């Protein structure tokens, strides 16, 4: 071992003496294992729920196409008899007095979003977790441990048509460029800088809702958001995204 200068040696000695006899609390490891198991279970359930939503949406679309606008007379296309997902998209069964259910639904829904974003943002982001207490905020963990704040927010779209997705250009989000998804949905992609680091956001409207997906840089490690415009457009075009883009109150 190297010979330490006196000050270093004294600080090191003080640390050793200060920690001497300080034992970790009981249950530390088993608590972590239990927490990891719960998170894994929740993530799996969320993934299953998101998968079932997409499958149900695809099956519904297929039935509608089969019937066709002038198709054979028959009963209107009905949703397939898929088994109810434990955390599927919301519902009439959500009553005002079911606070526990609502809370659990919100949490499950946010985990569905996190799992889906993790899959879609890989490999730029290794993991995505909801930020406690902030409905629209997620943390994307980079491959090197960076933390990229992610926003996945939904709000009611304003009234009236828009000439260009950039007509609502929000200067806070940076420079705007108009894009169009394969299905014709216009998307505004904003690129900007925060303290010299790149950030990116996509804003789009569909149905009665407006979705913002933003990835910001990790200021601590001075790392720009690791997502390109093409990657972000792929994310918002993915069929798993729209079923998740519902307002947190189920609206």
């Amino acid at each position: 071992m190297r010979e330490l200068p006196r000050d270093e040696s004294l600080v090191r000695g003080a640390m050793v003496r200060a920690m001497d006899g300080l034992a970790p609390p009981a249950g530390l490891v088993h608590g972590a294992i239990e927490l990891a198991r719960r998170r894994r279970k929740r993530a799996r359930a969320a993934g299953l729920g998101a998968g079932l939503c997409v499958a149900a949406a695809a099956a519904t679309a297929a039935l509608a196409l089969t019937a066709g606008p002038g198709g054979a007379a028959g009963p209107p296309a009905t949703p397939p008899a898929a088994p109810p997902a434990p955390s599927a998209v919301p519902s009439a069964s959500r009553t005002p007095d079911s606070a526990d259910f609502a809370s659990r639904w919100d949490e499950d829904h946010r985990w569905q979003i996190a799992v889906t974003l993790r899959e879609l943002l890989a490999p730029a982001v290794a993991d995505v977790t909801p930020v406690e207490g902030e409905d629209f905020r997620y943390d994307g963990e980079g491959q090197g441990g960076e933390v990229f704040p992610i926003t996945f927010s939904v709000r009611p779209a304003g009234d009236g048509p828009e000439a260009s997705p950039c007509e609502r250009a929000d200067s806070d989000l940076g420079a705007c460029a108009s894009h169009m998804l394969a299905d014709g949905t216009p998307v505004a992609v904003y690129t900007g800088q925060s303290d010299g680091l790149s950030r990116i956001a996509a804003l789009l409207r569909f149905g009665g809702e407006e979705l913002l997906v933003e990835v910001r840089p990790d200021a601590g490690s001075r790392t720009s958001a690791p997502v390109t415009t093409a990657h972000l457009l792929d994310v918002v075009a993915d069929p798993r995204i729209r079923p998740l883009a519902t307002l947190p109150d189920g609206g």
Partner: protein
Amino acid sequence: MRSYGEFEEYALARQRWLYHTAVLLCGDPHRAPDLVQTTLVKLLRHWSRAARADSVDAYARTVLTRTFLAEQRRGLLSRRAHAIEDPAPAADDPELRLTLLAALAELPPKARAMVILRYWEDLSVAEVASLMRCSESTVKSQCSRSLARLRTRLKDAELFTGQGS
């Protein structure tokens, strides 16, 4: 599941070291368990990769330090993630511990992490720079400055010579 067993064996053997490093980093024996648990959860999630690393301890140390810095940035360390059964036991040398933790708490989080990695974990300047993703000259200057501040605080408390408390 086999990986749980291997992980549990490792975590039980190294929890004391992780806890001590966490206490020094976050400055509070009651908040350190949250930091250790978050670290262990991340370690377990990536256990197959961590177990193949040259040094699992180095992997765990990196996760712990970066989790600490990330949570400091987000101001999350005051939130309890999971209930712990027992509070920390009474200190053997409470005055030294309180003074040292208070002195460390006066350092900015990155500087504190550098001091702990350098003098508690006994990493080289190059190893600290690599883990903290900064230059070696930054590590040297930060550690030198921090050491001077710690020396002043600990000498004021007459704890440096082991005569205190």
